[in-house]
């Protein structure tokens, strides 16, 4: 690893959670306004984080804490690898391992609420993981490489030929951001749930670590959206911001659906679009 990469890693480690926490704050404020509440200050996620970190550690199982650390560490690693321009497929797989850690932590103690949440977290992974894997394949077909860095060497924007895949990613993004209608394992703060499914048995520091991981994850996902219009960079940024606000809007106008609907939607609509996109690109590749 050379000096520039070292600086980049440092920037990702510090900058990404700041951005992620800020976005979460915007999300909470905006959602509150949409619900006719005043809402917390923009910086509330950071206050929450600090408060949770200062809590005394009370646990129902030591393993829960370990899996929370695993979730954070793997999400962080996936984010770092993504911003270093590494293999996109590897990033998706590592992110999947991270998500599984969250479920495993919930399974680590015999708690009915946590188990239900973990089961549903698994169903969510079952829904979005294939979509993300196929997205990596679709991006490969345009760039000729699985390395994220290759997107920036590409002439023009991916979204011109990959718009069906982009729509599929939006569906996966809804699940990954834990937004309605697909927030079946647990919803985010904005919905003010009392018992939060998969997070039921996480508390104090481990909950703080999970919050932190969510910040990394959010920025990583928006980064994935950014890739679709990476040149010029401001277009990608606009696309990411647009997607972010779109998800908040969807979250607030739709109610939670059942898991079957989620699977049906992501597989038939999401994967169907991505697959159609891939088949088309493959045909083009065959003709040229």
């Amino acid at each position, binding site marked *: 690893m050379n000096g520039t990469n070292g600086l980049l890693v440092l920037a990702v480690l510090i900058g990404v959670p700041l951005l992620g926490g800020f976005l979460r704050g915007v999300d909470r404020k905006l959602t509150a306004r949409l619900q006719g509440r005043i809402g917390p200050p923009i910086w509330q996620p950071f206050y929450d984080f600090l408060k949770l970190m200062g809590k005394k550690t009370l646990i129902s199982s030591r393993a829960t804490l370990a899996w929370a650390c695993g979730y954070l560490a793997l999400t962080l690693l996936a984010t770092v690898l993504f911003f270093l321009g590494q293999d996109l497929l590897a990033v998706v797989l590592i992110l999947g391992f991270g998500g599984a850690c969250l479920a*495993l932590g919930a*399974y680590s103690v015999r708690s009915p609420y946590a188990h239900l949440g973990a089961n549903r977290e698994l169903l969510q992974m079952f829904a979005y993981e294939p979509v993300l*894997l196929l997205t990596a394949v679709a991006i490969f077909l345009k760039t000729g490489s699985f390395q994220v860095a290759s997107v920036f060497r590409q002439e023009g924007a991916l979204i011109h030929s990959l718009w069906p895949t982009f729509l599929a990613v939006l569906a996966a993004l809804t699940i990954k951001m834990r937004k309605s209608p697909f927030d079946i394992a647990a919803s985010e703060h904005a919905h003010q749930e009392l018992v939060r499914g998969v997070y039921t048995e996480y508390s104090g520091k481990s909950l703080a670590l999970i919050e932190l991981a969510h910040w990394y994850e959010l920025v990583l996902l928006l980064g994935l959206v950014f890739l679709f219009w990476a040149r010029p960079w401001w277009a990608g940024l606009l696309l990411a911001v647009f997607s972010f606000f779109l998800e908040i809007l969807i979250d607030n106008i739709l109610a939670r659906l059942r898991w079957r609907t989620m699977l049906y939607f992501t597989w038939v609509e999401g994967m169907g679009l991505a697959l159609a996109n891939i088949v088309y690109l493959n045909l083009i590749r*065959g003709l040229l």
Partner: protein
Amino acid sequence: MRLDWLVAWLVLLPIVAGLLSLSVYRSTLRKALVLGTAAILAFMAVLLAAVTLGKGSPQGLDTAPWLSTLINWLDFALVAYFLYVGFRWRHYLVAGLAALQGVLLSLLEFWQLPHGLTVHPTFLLDPLASIMVLVISVIGSLICVYALDYMPEHEAHLHLERTRQPLFFCFLVGFLGVMNGLVMANNLLWLFFFWEMTTLCCYELIRHDRTEEAQASALRALWMNLIGGVACVLAMFLIYRTLGTLSLVAVVQEASLGGALLLPLAFLSLTAFTKAAQVPFQSWLLGAMVAPTPVSALLHSSTMVKAGVYLVLRLAPALFGTVLSSALAVFGAFVYLAASLLAISQTVSKRVLALSTVANLGLIIACAGINTDLALAAALVILIFHALSKGLLFMTVGIYEQQLGSRDIEVMEGLVNRSPVAAVVGIVGMLSMAFVPFGAVLGKWASLEAAATSTSAWFPLVAAFIAVGSAASLVFWVKWLGRLLSTVPLREEEKLEKRKGVYAYGTVLGLTGLLLVASVLVGGLVRELVLPAVTALGYQPQVAANWSGWGSPYGFFTVWPVFLVAGAALLLPLLTFRARREDYRPVYLCGENLAVEEAAFRGIGDQPVPLETGGLYLSASWGEARLNPWINLLGLMLLLVILLVAGVGA
């Protein structure tokens, strides 16, 4: 050491040791015999790998002509025995297939082949064969050692008057020799002999307990594998008619002849599918779990099913660029998806493992069908790591089974407290099957990249199958892991590990160590073992590998950061954080808990209601009853398409 001696040791030592064990009724003597054989066999396998990798080019080895004649007569003896089995158990499908095989074999030997046909060379020793021999001899030997602990306890439950272990170890240890012969054979007649011998060993091992269920499962395994045998003889007919020889290496080299060889290659693929328990033949492997657990471990990890995928990998270069190759890719990927989906609804641990085996073998076959250097490397990586992980998992499940008296996943709840050592080993095994950067999943990663880079028009379908199958496998592994992990805070559970058998725990821990070392050093493994094998098969590998990871021009996976980060994150809190008694809180039960260490809540009238949680099986969506007919139908149709495609091509 001279090569011919090395081969003789690898093939004959286990067979001789197996035959010797028939007369060994003292357990100390049996232990000495099995341990000695295991040690020598593993050493010889390493030696063979060193020799073949050192020489660079594949080494041929000829045998005396009388040996070939002997093998031919033994073929007929085997057919006669299968015929006897068919009539003895009134299973006329077995009898009919055996008779058909006998007729075809007679036609081949006495009518088509000239008298005294010599095939040069009899054995071919190349890196692919060495990898297989390593897998068979090292992992297989460990499983035999494990059986030394398992079988006495297994028999204690059966209340036998006289131990049947001599017969059991005869076939278990002998199996290794037969497999070694199979992967080194170049003469198709020899390969066929070893092939049928594995069918025999498998049949005898499955029926070992002599129950009705065991006998039925054994007969099912027999008839399905006999179909493969018939297809193999048909393939030999066609190959001899086209090429005038029965050398496997000639088949691969002359593949440029194209059309004429497609049909025999399709028949050989069918042979491989039966042995590798691909859809629609998966039911024999699922039935095989009635056998004692060392048998399952052996069949799934290092022998039997691996013979099937070995044959496909061996033939892959011959298929290069053909439509048959694309058909194999679609078929394999379909099996991967189907078996992964079926595994979600299984409540019996061994069935989950079996379906995961079917899935991974399908993925290996898909890789062979994708047929690029990266795909072949991926296939070999999956093969090696699947053998390590699955051997480990079956042996661990065998330990659970003897501790719990059940194979049900639901009964394994909270095993991490009740049987900590075995549970942690099992957790490592499952993580290694389900997650990056462990080898089995790295193989999946590489296979998906290979699918994307292949030029076949079918690749979107292959990629989609692999993507969904991969997500499904994540689901069934994680939910099983969840059952093992689920504990009640502070409750002192009854400890199940009262007796830690030195052979059972020793082999399981040893294999865990081997798995972890191999996983961390996967880049080196790819560079030193896998790439030479891919090169020797005739591919020009663009795959890059160093000690930190491996990849292709399209993407690279650096392994150690993931191990470092995941390992530190998961282990550090467990090692550094010491929880005191007062730090524990009961689980959330709406505030109606009885006590911290009590998994119960106050229900109606303040009566205590015990808390129960169960796993997720979703059998309404992915139950076998619902999926099986469709999956079998589709599998059968794909098989027919493969044969048709080859037939039309010819």
